[in-house]
């Protein structure tokens, strides 16, 4: 196993290296930020057109009324999942390598849920009535229908956003205090306010570590539940290709798979931009790649199971739906999904690929593309091939408004992420120190 960090890395080194990332940004950073804001601008313009002219602009046509926006919603919720997996589940498993990457993953979670949350609002058409989702009675005293998976979803996403945000902020407090104590000028004042009096006393650590443990224990079942609930938005309906008990674990594995890929996509440039090569090493990337491989294999197995059950179950509509997926007019989407998610992760069996940062970066982008198409195939293609009123099925094609708003969502996500990594420590200072040997006078620590 490769050494997690070099021997040059000490407590002081960690504080300085991470505090340095918060200095005045360079040209590369501004170029990335400008790209993100430009993409967001494209999205906003498309959204304004959509508001003015209505959902017809999104190309919705019977029976495809859930299309690119819902695809993006599921995609972004999925991206969010690996953050909590790395920060909470691997925390409970006491896996040391997570410390260098978990803050990035957790920030990614929060911003991905923020992005995901926009899509149901865009999708509802009359965006100004979004508050109807909140459980309160309407003018005739009628409450929301709690038997509907869409209401479960609202609760799940709302809880997930709240819990992942507080989890991120809580973990940040000791690190902000560490930055406060080395910063100067207005930055020191800002961080002093954000650190809310943290000094690392034994009392503070006693409550903090206990509370963090319980938050991790609460976030673990939460992360598994959220994408299960998202999958039930589909699985509870009767559409062939959706109505499967496999959906919950299948979606959770897919979510973590795409999320880990996104963590790799984000970490590679961040590490380069902020010169964090000594803190985030090849060892960390290799472990992420292994996680990606594991979840990718679960996803591939789900594809096989899904197709097998469609054939073995003997339901003609189910069989037809899967035939339509693979050989219908959307064959290109299905095969992009199969190749990117089913075949490409097999490259990660090779240690050469797992330890090659550029190679991993490329694979991770393909996985992101593949996972977007997976949601597109499940949602749009299943609806487009619906057998219930076949005579009334029109042809669906995504429009420029779909692509524009999707591009805008990437801009929105990367904008928040870039602003975050420049404002707050993108690598956890205190947790990276936890896995280093503590300074000892008497003997060399085993730690």
């Amino acid at each position: 196993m490769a050494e997690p960090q070099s021997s040059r890395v000490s407590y002081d080194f960690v504080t300085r290296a991470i505090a340095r990332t918060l200095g005045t940004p360079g040209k590369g950073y501004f170029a990335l930020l400008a790209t993100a804001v430009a993409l967001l601008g494209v999205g906003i313009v498309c959204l304004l057109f959509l508001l003015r002219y209505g959902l017809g602009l999104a190309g919705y046509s019977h029976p495809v009324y859930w299309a690119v926006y819902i695809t993006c919603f599921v995609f972004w919720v999925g991206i969010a999942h690996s953050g909590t997996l790395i920060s909470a589940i691997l925390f409970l498993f006491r896996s040391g390598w997570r410390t260098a990457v978990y803050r990035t993953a957790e920030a990614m979670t929060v911003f991905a849920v923020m992005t995901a949350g926009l899509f149901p609002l865009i999708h509802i058409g009359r965006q100004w009535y979004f508050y109807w989702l909140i459980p309160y009675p309407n003018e005739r005293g009628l409450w929301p229908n709690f038997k509907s998976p869409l209401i479960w979803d609202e609760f799940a996403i709302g809880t997930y956003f709240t819990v992942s945000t507080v989890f991120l902020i809580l973990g940040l407090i000791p690190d902000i205090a560490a930055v406060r104590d080395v910063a100067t000028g207005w930055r020191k004042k800002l961080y002093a306010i954000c650190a809310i009096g943290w000094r690392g006393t034994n009392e503070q650590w006693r409550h903090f570590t206990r509370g963090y443990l319980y938050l991790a224990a609460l976030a673990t079942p939460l992360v598994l539940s959220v994408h299960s609930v998202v999958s039930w938005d589909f699985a509870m309906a009767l559409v062939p290709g959706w109505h499967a008990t496999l959906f919950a674990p299948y979606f959770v594995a897919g979510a973590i798979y795409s999320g880990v890929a996104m963590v790799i996509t984000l970490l590679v440039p961040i590490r380069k931009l902020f010169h964090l090569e000594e803190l985030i090493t090849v060892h960390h990337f290799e472990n992420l790649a292994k996680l990606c491989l594991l979840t990718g294999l679960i996803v591939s197995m789900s594809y096989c199971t899904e197709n097998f059950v469609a054939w073995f179950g003997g339901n003609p509509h189910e069989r037809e739906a899967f035939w339509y997926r693979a050989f219908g007019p959307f064959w290109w989407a299905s095969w992009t999904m199969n190749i990117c998610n089913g075949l490409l992760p097999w490259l990660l069996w090779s240690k050469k690929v797992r330890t090659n940062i550029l190679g991993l970066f490329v694979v991770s982008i393909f996985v992101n593309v593949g996972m977007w198409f997976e949601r597109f195939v499940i949602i749009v293609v299943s609806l487009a091939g619906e057998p219930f009123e076949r005579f009334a099925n029109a042809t669906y094609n995504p429009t420029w408004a779909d692509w524009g708003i999707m591009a805008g969502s990437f801009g929105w996500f990367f904008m928040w992420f870039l602003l975050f990594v420049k404002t707050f420590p993108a690598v956890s200072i205190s947790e990276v120190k936890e896995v280093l040997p503590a300074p000892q006078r008497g003997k060399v620590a085993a730690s």
Partner: protein
Amino acid sequence: MKLVNPLTAIFHPPPTPGVLAVFGHLDTTVDAIGRLHAAGHTDFTVYSPIPRHEIEDALDQPVSPVRMFTLIGGISGCAIGAWLTLYMSYDWPLVLGGKPIGSVPPYVVIMFEMTILFGALSTILGILFNALFAARRLGTVAYDPRFTNDKFGIFVPSQPARAGQVESLLRGAGAEEIRRA
């Protein structure tokens, strides 16, 4: 006549007199904690850049009460989830999909999410309340900015008459630097 703001006493309490020692090593810090205990000190504050089990074990503190906040928050969340779904269903009974009006299995999802939501939020409140608002002598004991970086520290509250004794004890344990506050 100078007006005295009565809130000053609450928000800017006078500093606690005592001795602050800076340690460069974990083992010397743990040793000092042991010596302080042996000398009968119980009311000191230990600073560390990271939580370490060695320090926790040496201090032998009770388990944090934050867990009670989590438990109570979780149970209330579950109860609120059950109330929300059942009350809202029976307030205007509508048969949907032939299912009973108050059908518990789908409501379990809401109850579960509310358990997590309330449990997590009350855990945060528990940490804030215990570690910040209700922390003893918060902001009145001496501090050094290196304690969040790479140094460990111990602050022992003591009257000036006894400070010399504490100083020699801490120096004996291996403190790098000592100052009186």
